[in-house]
């Protein structure tokens, strides 16, 4: 029962986290929210296995964590380098234009 309460709490947290992804205002907020949503998803999958009595599916949760990470890195490269091919250690970062995020000072 307590586990179910935990699942419900996590569900609430996911719903709340979604709000920031929806309202923005900058794209970074959305990515942050999406990333944090992904982490909560991982926890939720792990938890729901115990709640529903079939905890064999933890394998999937690892994949979620992994995908979540790689997608965030790709988004980060999108902003910082405007390219997916650049090496992180080589190219100078893109200039401070903040084209997508309207948050430039």
């Amino acid at each position, binding site marked *: 029962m307590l586990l179910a309460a935990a699942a419900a709490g996590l569900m609430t947290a996911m719903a709340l986290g979604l709000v920031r992804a929806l309202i923005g205002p900058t794209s970074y907020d959305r990515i942050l929210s999406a990333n944090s949503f992904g982490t909560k998803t991982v926890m939720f999958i792990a938890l729901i296995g115990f709640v*529903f*009595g*079939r*905890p*064999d*599916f933890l394998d999937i949760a690892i994949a979620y964590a992994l995908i979540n990470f790689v997608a965030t890195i790709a988004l980060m490269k999108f902003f910082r380098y405007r390219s997916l091919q650049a090496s992180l250690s080589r190219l100078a970062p893109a200039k401070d234009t903040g084209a997508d995020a309207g948050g430039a000072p």
Partner: protein
Amino acid sequence: MSFLLGHFNYLIVVFLMMGGLWITFSSRNYIKRMIGLALFQTSVGLFYISLGKVAGGTAAIVLDKTSKAGEALNAHLSPDYVARAGVDGVVYSNPLPHVLILTAIVVGVATLAVGLAIAVRVREAYGTVEAGEIAELDRTEAGPRA
């Protein structure tokens, strides 16, 4: 109420399909259309999975009914329901829709990749991915029609 709960999934999935289709039809931007298409295809997957759900069931990975997990599952269910809906004492959801949707998801990502690749080429050839501007460019640069 029971009817609504029983069909809630289908109604929402229909809404999702309509949303995806709406994005595809109404957008003029090629990338946005592909996103809509991807959402549409995913929603169809959700529809299939809804069809295959069996109440009180578990994923179709064979489980011994005497194992801990099996007993935990059956604790919620009445024995005659398990006897009616289950196989070897465990109730599973229908695996066939899962198989079909696995295939459909793969087809979906294949379509997405090709569609986006075409969009990139369109951008290189026309300088835009907006359908209206492309039609305009075709009209003006192909010369007046006879």
